C-alpha cells in the first residue's frame, strides 16, 4: 500500500506539469488585458505611456518563454507570485478564502452523507413502496433544483419570515462557532441538497445490487440478523461506488460553487476564481487551477485508499 501511495504521488508530477502548461497557454490565448481593465475600465483617460509602463511592471511585456520559465520555476519553489490585480501574494489571496470554502465543502459533505445514507438504504430496502417513491421524488428534486436557486429561496425566506440574514463577513469557527455556523449552515444546506440527491440514488442502486449477491443469501441462511446483514455486509460493499461519488463531488466544491457563493456573498474560492478569470489575472488564475488539480488528484487518491480499506480484496501493490 505504501508503495502504491508513493507511486501515485509521483504520478501527480507529470499530471500537474501538463495542467500547468495547458493553463498557461490557454490564458495567453484568450482575449483581454488586465492593464486596460485596471486603468481604463472605469472610463478614465489614461495615456498609452501609463498603460505600457504598467504592463512592463507586471511583466506582461516579457517574452512568452521567459514568462513560462518564471511560472514553472515559481511552481517548483512554491512561489506562486503576486496577483496582477491586487498585487498581494497569490498564496495570501487563496489562503483568505480557503478556510471558508473547505468548511462549506466539509459541512455540505457531512450533511449529504447524513441525509443520503439512511435515505438511500431505506429506499433500497423498501423498494417500490410509497416510502421509496417519496424518497426518489426528494432526490429528483435535488437533482433538478439548482443549488444557487435554492440558496436564493433560503435567503428570501429568512428575510421575509424572520427579517434576518446570516452574517455578511466570515468568522472562523475557532473564533466564534455560533456566528460561523449561522453564516455557513445555509449555503451548506443549499449545496447539500443536490449533493445528497446524487449520493442517495447511488447508495440506493448499490444496495439493491448488493442485496442480490450470494453472500447476502448465505448470511441470511446462517441466521444473521437482518440489521447486521445490512450494516456489516450490504452497506460496506455498497459504499464503494458511493465513495467515488463522494470524492468527486467534494473536489468539485473546491472552487465550483461560484453562483452559490455570490448568492450568499461568501468570500470563497469560486468567487475568487471567476474574478481572476474576468480580470485576466494570469498569476491568480494559474494558481487556482493548480490548486483545484491538486485537490482532484489527492481526493482520488484518498478515495482509492478508502476503497482498499473497505474492501480487503483490493490490495494495491500486492503481488
Amino acid at each position: 500500500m505504501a508503495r502504491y501511495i508513493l507511486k501515485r504521488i509521483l504520478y501527480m508530477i507529470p499530471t500537474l506539469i501538463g495542467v500547468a502548461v495547458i493553463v498557461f497557454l490557454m490564458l495567453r490565448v484568450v482575449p483581454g488585458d488586465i492593464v486596460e481593465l485596471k486603468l481604463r475600465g472605469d472610463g478614465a483617460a489614461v495615456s498609452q505611456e501609463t498603460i505600457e509602463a504598467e504592463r512592463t511592471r507586471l511583466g506582461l511585456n516579457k517574452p512568452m518563454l521567459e514568462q513560462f520559465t518564471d511560472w514553472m520555476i515559481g511552481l517548483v519553489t512554491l512561489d506562486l507570485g503576486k496577483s496582477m490585480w491586487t498585487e498581494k501574494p497569490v498564496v495570501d489571496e487563496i489562503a483568505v478564502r480557503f478556510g471558508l470554502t473547505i468548511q462549506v465543502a466539509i459541512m455540505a459533505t457531512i450533511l449529504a452523507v447524513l441525509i443520503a445514507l439512511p435515505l438511500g438504504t431505506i429506499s433500497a430496502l423498501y423498494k417500490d413502496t410509497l416510502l421509496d417513491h417519496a424518497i426518489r421524488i426528494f432526490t429528483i428534486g435535488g437533482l433538478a433544483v439548482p443549488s444557487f436557486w435554492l440558496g436564493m429561496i433560503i435567503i428570501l425566506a429568512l428575510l421575509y419570515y424572520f427579517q434576518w440574514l446570516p452574517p455578511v463577513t466570515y468568522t472562523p469557527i475557532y473564533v466564534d462557532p455560533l456566528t460561523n455556523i449561522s453564516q455557513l449552515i445555509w449555503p451548506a444546506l443549499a449545496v447539500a441538497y443536490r449533493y445528497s440527491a446524487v449520493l442517495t440514488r447511488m447508495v440506493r442502486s448499490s444496495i439493491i445490487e448488493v442485496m442480490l449477491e450470494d453472500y447476502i443469501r448465505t448470511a441470511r441462511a446462517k441466521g444473521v440478523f437482518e440489521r447486521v446483514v445490512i450494516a456489516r455486509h450490504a452497506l460496506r460493499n455498497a459504499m464503494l461506488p458511493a465513495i467515488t461519488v463522494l470524492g468527486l463531488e467534494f473536489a468539485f466544491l473546491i472552487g465550483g460553487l461560484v453562483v452559490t457563493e455570490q448568492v450568499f456573498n461568501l468570500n470563497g474560492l469560486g468567487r475568487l476564481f471567476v474574478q481572476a478569470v474576468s480580470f485576466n489575472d494570469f498569476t491568480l488564475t494559474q494558481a487556482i487551477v493548480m490548486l483545484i488539480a491538486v485537490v482532484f488528484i489527492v481526493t482520488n487518491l484518498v478515495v482509492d485508499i478508502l476503497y482498499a480499506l473497505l474492501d480487503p480484496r483490493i490490495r494495491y501493490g500486492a503481488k
Partner: protein
Amino acid sequence: MTYLRYPLGAVLAAVVATGALAEEKPVRGGILEYAVKSEAPTFDCAGSATYAVMHAVSPFYSMLLKVDLENYPNLKGDLAKSWTVSDDFKTITFELHPNVKFHDGSILTSEDVKATFERYRNPPQGQTSIIKAALEDIDTIETPSPTTVVFKLKAPNKAMIQIFAIPNACIYSAKKLNEDPNYPRQTIMGTGPFKFKEEVKGSHLSGERFEGYFREGLPYLDGFRAVLFTQSAAVINAIQGGQVMGEFRAVTPSERKTLEAAMGDKIKFYESDWSTLLLLMFNTEKPPFNDVRVRRALNLAIDRWGGSKGLAPTTLLRNVGGLSRPNGPFATPESELVKLPGFGKDIKAAREEAKRLLKEAGQENLKFTLHNRNIASPYTPTGVYLIDQWKQIGVEVTHSQVETKAYIETMNAGTYDVAIEFNNNVLEDPVHTLLQYLSYDKSPVNKSRAIDRELDGLFETMLREIDDNKRREALLAFEKRAIEQAYQVPILWWYRIVALNSRVKGWHMSPSHLFGQDLETVWLAPEK
C-alpha cells in the same frame, strides 16, 4: 377653552421643534457598514480609475481641496486653509492648515504635498499615475515654507485648480515615499478622518476614527466597514436585512422600488444627475463609418427624448444632453441642444434626413454589428433600444455583447464597427471632460480613432483662454463640431439614485460617485 389651546399648541410646537432639532444634531458614535460592489485593485489613489479604489480609501486621505457638496461645484479647502490663483492663471499658491497629523503622528508639511504631486506627475519606474496627463501643465512645485506650496504652470490653465480637488489626488507622506515609493499601493497611511484598521481581501475593509484629525469634532462615526458584494441582488437583500446600511454608488429604479416597498420610511433615497454617460462610438477607420453622412444618419435616427422616457423607469439612463453634463454649469441649454443633429424633437423629420443621407452615401441596405458589453444595466437595454431605432430607417444591426475584457480588447484592436462606450467624468470643466473627443494621436482613449484638428484647436482654446465668455464660445463650437461630425456622440446621461438607511445622516449627494466618500460628516441617528 380657546385660551388654553394656544399655550398648549405653543408648548407642543416647542416640544416638536426641540425634538426635530435634537434629531438633526449629529450624534457621535457608531460603525457604518456599507456595501461596495467592486474590490479595489490597489490602495493607491491614482493607481486605478475604478471607483472601487476611492470608495475604499477616501476616508483615509485628504486632498488639498475638496468639492463643496453643499455648494456644488464650488471648491473648498481640505488640507489647504486658503489658496490664491494668480491673474494670469499660471501660479497657484496654497496655505496649509498647520499641525495636520498623519495617522502615524508625523506632521504634514508642504514637502509632503510636493513629494505627492511629483510622484503623480512623474511616477518613478514601476508606478502608475492616472492623473499624470492632467498635471502636465505643472512646471515646478515650490515649498517656500512648511505650510506653503506654490505650483507654477507652464502656460495659463484656468481649470487646473480643479485637479487639486479630484479624489484621486490624495496626499501621501514624503517620508514614507522616500522609504518605499510603492507604499501607497499596499499600505494606507494618510491624514484623513479615519485610520486603517483591517482588510480581508474579498471580504471587507474597515477603518476607525482618527483621534488626531485636524478638524476638531470630526468624524462623528467611531468607524466604518466597507463590505464587498459581487451581486447587486445580494446588496439589495443585505440592505433590507440590515446587514449593511446602504451602498454609495447607485441602485437602479427597479431596485429602488424593491427597497421602498420593503423598508418604507427606514430607507432614504438621494438622487442626482450623474456625470456619467454612454457614447455611441463609430470606428472611423472602417468603411462606411469613415463617411460622415453614414455616422450622422445613424445619429439622427435615435429618438433620445423618447428613449429617455422609455429607459428611465428601468435603467440608470435618463437625461438627454450634449457633451457636458445636463443641468451642469457647462450644459448647453435645451433651446440650443435641439438644434444639433440627433437632439431635435422632430424625430420623423430627423429619420427622413437620415434615410436621405444613407441613400446619398450609397448605404441604403446598411448592415453592421453593434459591439457592447454584456452588462445587464444599462448596456443591454441601450443596445436593444438603438437597434430598434436604426430599424426604423431600414438599417439591420446585430447585437454583439461580450465580457468587459473582450470588449476592451476589440476596442483597442480597432476591429469593431460601432460600439457603445462608457465615459465617466469626475470634474465639470470641459478641459477635464472632453479629452475623449480629441484626435486619436493626442488622446488614445478616443477609440473612434478620428483625427480632427479643428476639435483639437477648440480644445486648446478652452484650455488656455481665461475669459469665461470666450471659453464658453469655444465649448459651444466644440460641441457643435463634435456632434455634427459624429465620431462619437452621447446617447443618454445616467441618473444616480443612492439608497441609504434613514439612520445615516450627514452624507451629501453629488453628480460624481467619487465625491463625498470620506465620510467625514456622516453620522448615525439613534435607532428608534
